[in-house]
């Protein structure tokens, strides 16, 4: 990302590949590329066919330009704090600045400045976050709608095709994500749909925790939130063998990378420890919830308390935030 204009090119930084379609004047027609996880989950939302369709839609927008210019204005993000990645404090720079380096440095700096919020952490929500499962080969065709979701409440049905959201013409699932990413937690979004041969309009009402999603897979969550502390949920068999309830808090410490997590090692935490409570909390958390809790509940200079199982004994470890 060295030298790349961050005012223009804003996207989900944890992808391995993405596409921008633009006019020569910098107007963005749309984005392509959606990632929901690692391994098999890394390609669940992309296909060659949906890429092709995004190209066709981008060309249609180009043909309609500049008459449609005002509708496309929202596809450009707000002015970033730093114009280029190499200006971001604490960003990792080797032979390359990776896309995810941008997000992880931003998260880390916000935490260091005591400005990190939940909204910073939940990024680029999937269409599923509002109840929409899209056809992977089309990107904009609704495959199913989750009962009780905002999409269901808005009257969106399987077979509908999303045409625009918040006034922005859409070309891909990434464009849906872009609108959701830019939206406040409590908001309403105008949507236009193609239904059969006709068009219809509706409004999505969003509030609550709809932006929350799995961030454990994200590369940026490593340096951005874990910062050298790598713990993963304990499997069912390992829980049972230790007499832990299936729904209890239980994370195995996999790695304590130095120097980042050196303070944890100095405090007595070890690889192989099983953390069964954090700050006395024993209720189950997902990996995403755990790494989010670490940073939102504890600012720099604070201490955190782990209860660990080691060699069959419980130990209390109080560690400085790292």
């Amino acid at each position, binding site marked *: 990302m060295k030298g790349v204009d961050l005012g223009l090119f804003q996207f989900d930084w944890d*992808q391995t*590949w993405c596409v*921008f379609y633009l*006019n*020569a004047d*910098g107007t963005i027609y749309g984005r392509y590329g959606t990632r929901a996880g690692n391994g098999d989950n890394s390609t669940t939302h992309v296909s060659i066919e949906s890429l092709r369709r995004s*190209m066709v839609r*981008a060309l249609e927008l180009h043909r309609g330009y500049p008459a449609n210019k005002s509708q496309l204005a929202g596809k450009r993000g707000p002015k970033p704090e730093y114009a280029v990645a190499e200006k971001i404090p604490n960003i990792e720079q080797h032979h*390359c600045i*990776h896309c995810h380096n941008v997000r992880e440095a931003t998260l880390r700096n916000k935490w260091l400045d005591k400005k990190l919020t939940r909204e910073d952490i939940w990024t680029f929500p999937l269409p599923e976050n509002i109840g929409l499962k899209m056809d992977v080969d089309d990107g904009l065709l609704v495959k199913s709608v989750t009962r009780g979701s905002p999409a269901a409440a808005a009257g969106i049905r399987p077979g509908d095709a999303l045409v625009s959201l918040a006034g922005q013409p859409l070309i891909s699932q990434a464009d849906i994500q872009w609108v959701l990413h830019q939206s406040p937690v409590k908001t309403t979004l105008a949507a236009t749909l193609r239904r059969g041969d006709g068009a219809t309009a509706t409004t999505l009402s969003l509030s609550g925790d709809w932006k929350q999603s799995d961030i454990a897979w994200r590369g940026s969550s490593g340096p951005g939130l874990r910062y050298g502390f790598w713990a993963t949920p304990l499997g069912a068999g390992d829980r049972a063998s230790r007499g832990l309830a299936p729904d209890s808090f239980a994370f195995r410490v996999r790695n304590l990378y130095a120097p980042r997590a050196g303070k944890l090692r100095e405090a007595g935490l070890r690889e192989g420890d099983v953390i069964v409570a954090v700050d006395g909390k024993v209720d189950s958390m997902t990996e995403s919830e755990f790494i989010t809790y670490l940073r939102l509940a504890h600012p720099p200079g604070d201490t955190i308390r782990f209860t660990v199982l080691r060699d069959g004994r419980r130990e209390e470890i109080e560690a400085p935030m790292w």
Partner: protein
Amino acid sequence: MRVRWQLGLAVWVLAACVPAASAQDDLKKNLKDNNVAEHWIYDDIAAGFAEARASGKPLLITFRCVP
């Protein structure tokens, strides 16, 4: 066939992270990008914009992670 038709309608830019010419060569070598198709402008976003302005075509820019 449809994709082949679209190739002529857009300016294609393959972007990674290192803009200098010599670094481009290293990047290509390291990634074994020895047979990049002619319609791609390799790792030079400014050149892509210049060609889009001259041709009136839209830009397709890809960003990919360099391991």
